[in-house]
């Protein structure tokens, strides 16, 4: 039998109310096969029985099976009896297997087709539902801290060191690049204005105080949010997908102690240090600009910086760094713990962690700036 004769389908009357479908040639998926709907019309005219004749088939695969399954569906819908015995034995058995388990009838919930108003409403409800969760998580972390100080929190010290290494030293290159460029920009920006009043030397004050008090912490916060906050969420989210978080729960080990606490501590320790580093790099950039472009002596710049910087500026910068670090760890771990159980959910958790962290950092920055100003620090 030649294998390449295309499919053939003959529809013949069989008895008074019967129809015989004669199948021939090659019924494989790699060719263009007819849809079962071509028979819809033929089945209308008072047909009660349908039988198949497959003796002419040269080759077949799922293409044939799908066609026959489609015909069977059409017939069942019209109450027509089916006689499959004319088909190849293997095809009959596979069709029987496909029909053995009845189709699951489930109401499918579809999220599509919602109006704009419904979407806005849904998002708003979702937002307010999220707030108790956030507060709850904050509470759990607070309890965990209490356990830490009473020495009852379980986590591995090696985890803490690993996180510290990951978020601290490994972030040095990127913090260097960003801080240097920001310091450069700040110096230029200031120089342009100060030159008008002939007070270029105050570039040193501007850059030093600006970097140490505000910009260093803010830049570091944003870098760490993108670098580490997202990583936390992805890591914990993947653990959620693998049931690892549930495994902690069933063992009665607090996943907050074990997973969140070391990350939180690592960030609260490392972000202030990175902030300090960022401040120094910024001042270095300011010095470079002042000395090469605006003719301010290196020693002059140095003494001006020493005169301008007070301990309180460092304390402000360090406190901000620590708070930002806590915010980033909080946002990253929260979104990771809330993660759904799919690859897509992990992606959303990482995105959401960065957005939440930057939002929290900005809010905290504003509040702290106002408070410090009022307290005259």
């Amino acid at each position, binding site marked *: 039998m030649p294998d390449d004769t295309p499919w053939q389908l003959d529809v013949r009357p069989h008895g008074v109310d019967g129809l015989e479908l004669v199948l021939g040639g090659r019924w494989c998926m790699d060719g263009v096969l007819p849809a079962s709907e071509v028979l819809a019309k033929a089945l209308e005219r008072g047909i009660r029985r349908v039988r198949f004749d497959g003796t002419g088939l040269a080759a077949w695969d799922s293409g044939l099976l799908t066609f026959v399954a489609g015909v069977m569906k059409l017939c069942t819908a019209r109450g027509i009896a089916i006689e499959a015995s004319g088909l190849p034995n293997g095809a009959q058995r596979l069709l029987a297997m*496909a029909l053995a388990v009845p189709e699951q009838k*489930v109401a499918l919930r579809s999220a599509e087709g919602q109006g704009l108003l419904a979407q806005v409403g849904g998002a708003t409800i979702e937002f307010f539902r999220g707030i108790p969760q956030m507060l709850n998580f904050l509470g759990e972390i607070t309890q965990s801290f209490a356990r830490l100080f009473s020495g009852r929190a379980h986590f591995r010290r090696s985890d803490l060191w690993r996180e510290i290494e990951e978020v601290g030293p490994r972030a040095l290159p990127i913090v260097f690049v960003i801080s240097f460029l920001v310091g450069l920009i700040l110096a230029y920006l200031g120089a342009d204005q100060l030159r008008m009043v002939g007070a270029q030397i105050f570039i040193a004050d501007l850059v030093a105080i600006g970097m140490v008090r505000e910009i260093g912490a803010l830049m570091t916060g944003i870098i760490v949010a993108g670098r580490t906050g997202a990583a936390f969420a992805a890591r914990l989210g993947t653990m959620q997908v693998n049931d690892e978080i549930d495994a902690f729960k069933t063992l009665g080990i607090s996943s907050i102690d074990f997973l969140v606490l070391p990350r939180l501590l690592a960030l609260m320790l490392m972000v202030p240090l990175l902030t300090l580093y960022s401040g120094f790099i910024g001042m270095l950039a300011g010095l470079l600009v002042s000395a090469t472009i605006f003719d301010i002596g290196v020693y002059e710049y140095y003494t001006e910086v020493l005169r301008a910087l007070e301990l309180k500026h460092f304390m402000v910068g360090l406190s901000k760094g620590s708070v930002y670090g806590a915010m980033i760890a909080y946002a990253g771990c929260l979104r990771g713990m809330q993660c759904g159980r799919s690859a897509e959910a992990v992606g959303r958790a990482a995105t959401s962690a960065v957005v939440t962290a930057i939002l929290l950092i900005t809010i905290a920055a504003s509040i702290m700036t106002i408070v410090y100003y009022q307290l005259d620090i």
Partner: protein
Amino acid sequence: MAEAPPTNDQPFIEVRALTMAYGDFVVQHDLDFMVNQGDIFVVMGGNGCGKTTLMRAMVGLQQPAHGSVLYGGEDLWRAAPEVRQRLKRRLGVLFQGGALWSSLTLAENVALPLSEYTDLPQARIDEIVSFKLALVGLAGFEEFYPAELSGGMKKRAGLARAMALDPDILVIDEPSSGLDPLTARRLDELIVELRDSLGTTIVVVTHELASILSIGNNSIYLDADTHTMIATGHPQVALESGHPKVRHFLTRGTT
């Protein structure tokens, strides 16, 4: 009456002196065996002996340290990229956890290989998808996402995807783990039926004794201690007169 394969003198699948390693750690070395067309070939062995690693080497996912895997005489790992692509298209693979794409519905999961590799119109693809899902007992679950299914259902949906294109060779990792006994048996029946009706050659990685002895007609036993194969052939023969270790395995340690 499945499609006749191109006949030549080459064995259908041949594995020659295959050694698989992770760095310096040799998982299995010097594996030599053949799979004939229409075989249900069982890869047996205890936990951690390298069954899944062998599977990954056979389907082109993990480069073996030495040796070769030949399909009809063509070396999978040394073939030109387009030849390798063609060989891979003949394979359907079911991973241990189902490996369904989580952002796609079941129907989209099964339809993706069809829309990538065939020119079928969408209506025909939908029909094929529904039929394949019905074959694995998941009729009506087309619009579900993998996250909404149980482990056993994911596995069956994975099988529907693996056989979407009617592959010549179906490679299945642990088909019955996580399935209830009746569903597991139905799956075994489906595997035998695919072989009998469509002529699919099937490579099964399993340690389900009931499956090994009822459906397998050829096998290999990988030993975890010596890191190589210690038996190949019909599992029933291995049970009756094989290496003591294999008999021990196949009788759950009672002989």
